[in-house]
């Protein structure tokens, strides 16, 4: 009896599968395992991850690594995916002239206009002039209230800006009602002596005057030209609970359209498209260019830099393969997105949603140096290692082990870096395609749209359902149902959105409503996977007609997702296609298709 291992190196995970073959052709699957891919797919550092995965799988059947007789590596598709994101608009404030944020507890309500005056200079105030007073956090709430109360009889104080979180405390001690904005971090940047308008919204509503250009014009007495120039301010204040707009005659606020540049497609036809045109237009142009040889960006523009960055990061793979120094991007997936970007020159850390484009690119090299990996593996393990079988064919073979499938069979392999499709015909012929854009692009979209600090959090949001801890004994899950706990939940989670990873709860540090996270998550998945699935299947389908594919098996890491397969099923049902998550060998789920195919192909 011989022990044989199939090894599949993917962009993000390395999967192995171990089987035993008897003399009489008797064959049995014994074990499987998966590990993170170490290094870029197709490079020598992969060996580390392969060894770790093999060890784990052999451990499960209580055998040493040396008991293996043969390792079969896949001829990995020579495509590597990468992602990048670039904003195409930006808002710049050259002179600090607005505050717009959501302090948890502002005080008072309504709007007011007045000249800005620091609390320490309040004695300089002249009677009859309306003032808006700004107080730094070195003054306690009692001092602020006392000083103001002392001057209110002769001074016309209309509103108050505080650095500390003490708006309610001050309001309760003031002899006059006025709107108070607090938690303004950089209060020293407030320009004294300038005219300012302040607004605090009623509870449960957002501001109305300052988020409207004509509202600002009314309060600050602007002419038509000036009103036009404050439009970006009004735009960035939409939805805020409190705001201050300061009139700075020479202040300059503008919304820059960055020189985003053009993408140039070198295909059967040359085509170019400005990145401003949006994702749909870009994808349309891509399709019209026919088969793509390379994709470039205009030099010294955002998109140019972005595509060059992707090519550079791929260069190490090319280096391993002499004579193939040129890296060519053969497919991209562009997605429209919005990114919250901190406004340059803001006073309280305000952000503005800027338009951005996320791009996943796929690099095709002539050939990945798989043979070298096999040689290295052989040296280190003292087990014969061979490169056997093309990835897509192996994946189809593996997918065939899913109960309930028949030929012709299409697979959709949704991994981390690329979405691959293949159709296996009854006569054994296989047609394949590789498309840029998969799980990693989804993570990137989630990260940018929610403004998350870490990619890990974005990945966890992608992977796990969530809930909101509403009391120390229960939480509301994202589908509306409640879960109760016998032991009290750790107070650190209280009031937070948590991700329900198996065996533990992960807290989302950022204060984002659950509904918003849900919307962004689903949207990102739909934008990437639904578009890619249709694009890929159309290419491999007989006569490019989706209806000629009877069944589609979803495999790969992203097929394990708890909602992507359902989304695809819904869309593909329109084409009368049976589509579902694969179940390799009836036990593995959508994982391990390629590794399984490698073993099956050994049997012939």
């Amino acid at each position, binding site marked *: 009896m011989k022990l044989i291992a199939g090894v599949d190196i993917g962009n993000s995970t390395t999967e192995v599968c171990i089987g035993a073959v008897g003399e009489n052709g008797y064959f049995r699957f014994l074990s499987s395992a998966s590990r993170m891919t170490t290094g870029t797919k197709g490079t020598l550092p992969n060996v580390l991850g392969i060894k770790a995965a093999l060890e784990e799988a052999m451990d499960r059947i209580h055998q040493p690594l040396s008991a293996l007789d043969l390792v079969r590596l896949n001829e990995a598709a020579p495509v590597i995916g990468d992602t990048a994101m670039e904003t195409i608009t930006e808002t710049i404030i050259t002179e600090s002239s607005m505050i717009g944020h959501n302090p948890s507890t502002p005080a008072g309500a309504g709007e007011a206009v007045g000249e800005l005056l620091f609390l320490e200079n309040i004695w300089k105030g002249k009677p009859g002039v309306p003032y808006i007073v700004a107080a730094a956090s070195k003054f306690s709430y009692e001092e602020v209230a006392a000083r103001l109360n002392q001057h209110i009889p002769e001074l016309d104080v209309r509103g108050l800006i505080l650095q500390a979180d003490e708006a309610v405390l001050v309001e309760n001690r003031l002899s006059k009602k006025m709107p108070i904005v607090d938690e303004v971090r950089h209060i020293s940047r407030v320009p004294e002596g300038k005219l300012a308008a302040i607004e605090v919204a009623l509870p449960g509503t957002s501001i109305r005057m300052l988020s409207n250009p004509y509202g600002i014009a009314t309060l600050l007495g602007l002419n038509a030209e000036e009103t036009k120039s404050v439009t970006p301010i009004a735009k960035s204040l939409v939805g805020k609970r409190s705001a201050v707009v300061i009139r700075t005659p020479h202040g300059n606020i503008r919304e820059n359209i960055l020189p985003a540049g053009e993408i140039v497609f070198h295909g059967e036809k040359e085509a170019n498209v400005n990145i401003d045109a949006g994702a749909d237009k870009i994808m349309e142009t891509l399709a019209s260019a026919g088969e793509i040889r390379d994709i470039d960006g205009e030099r010294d523009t955002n998109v140019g830099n972005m595509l060059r960055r992707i090519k550079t990061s791929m260069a190490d793979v090319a280096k391993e393969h002499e004579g193939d120094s040129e890296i060519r991007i053969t497919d991209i997936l562009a997605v429209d997105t919005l990114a919250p970007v901190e406004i340059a020159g803001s006073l309280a850390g305000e952000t503005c949603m800027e338009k951005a484009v996320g791009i996943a690119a796929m690099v095709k090299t002539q050939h990945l140096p798989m043979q070298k990996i096999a040689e290295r593996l052989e040296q280190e393990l003292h087990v014969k290692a061979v490169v056997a079988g093309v990835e897509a064919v192996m994946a189809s073979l593996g997918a065939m082990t899913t109960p309930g499938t028949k030929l012709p069979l299409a697979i959709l392999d949704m991994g981390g870096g690329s979405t691959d499709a293949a159709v296996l015909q009854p006569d054994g012929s296989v047609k394949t395609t590789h498309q840029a854009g998969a799980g990693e692009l989804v993570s990137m979209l989630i990260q940018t749209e929610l403004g998350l600090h870490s990619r890990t959090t974005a990945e966890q949001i992608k992977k796990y359902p969530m809930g909101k801890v509403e009391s*120390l004994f229960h939480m509301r899950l994202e589908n509306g149902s409640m879960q109760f706990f016998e032991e*009290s939940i750790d107070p*650190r989670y*209280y009031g937070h959105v948590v991700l329900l990873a198996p065996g533990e709860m992960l807290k989302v540090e950022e204060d984002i409503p659950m509904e918003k996270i849900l919307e962004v998550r689903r949207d990102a998945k739909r934008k990437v996977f639904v578009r890619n699935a249709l694009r890929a299947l159309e290419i491999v389908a007989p006569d490019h007609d989706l209806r000629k594919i009877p069944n589609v098996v979803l495999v790969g890491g992203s097929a394990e997702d708890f909602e992507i397969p359902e989304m695809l099923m819904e869309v593909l049902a329109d084409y009368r296609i049976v589509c579902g998550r694969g179940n390799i060998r009836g036990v593995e789920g959508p994982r391990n298709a390629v590794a399984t195919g490698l073993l099956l192909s050994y049997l012939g």
Partner: protein
Amino acid sequence: MVVNKPAIIIYVQKPDEDLLREVCAGIEEEGVLFQVQTHEGDLDALAYDAANESMLGAGIGMTGVRLAMQMQRLPRGKNVFELNAPAFWQCRNLGANSARAIKKMPFKSIYQTETIN
């Protein structure tokens, strides 16, 4: 008949007045009412009784410079937060958190300095 106001109850024994004032300020800033009363028992008992007496379901116990925050239906001694000889900002946030417990908002940080400006 004694009718409780919808307030956070603070049960105290010889409290440090400066710290207590900060706790109250924290609650006030969040817009919630509070009541300060002297009460018998150790720190755990003060906090536990305060939480159960409060119709809002949150209470604070304080003896000297020691503070504990408790919520209704949590077992005695299992305080949500405990502070010993804290800084002013910690008291302020403890007060704010007792109010946030009622408002079902995420707690402010009590033990690390990073959140104060």
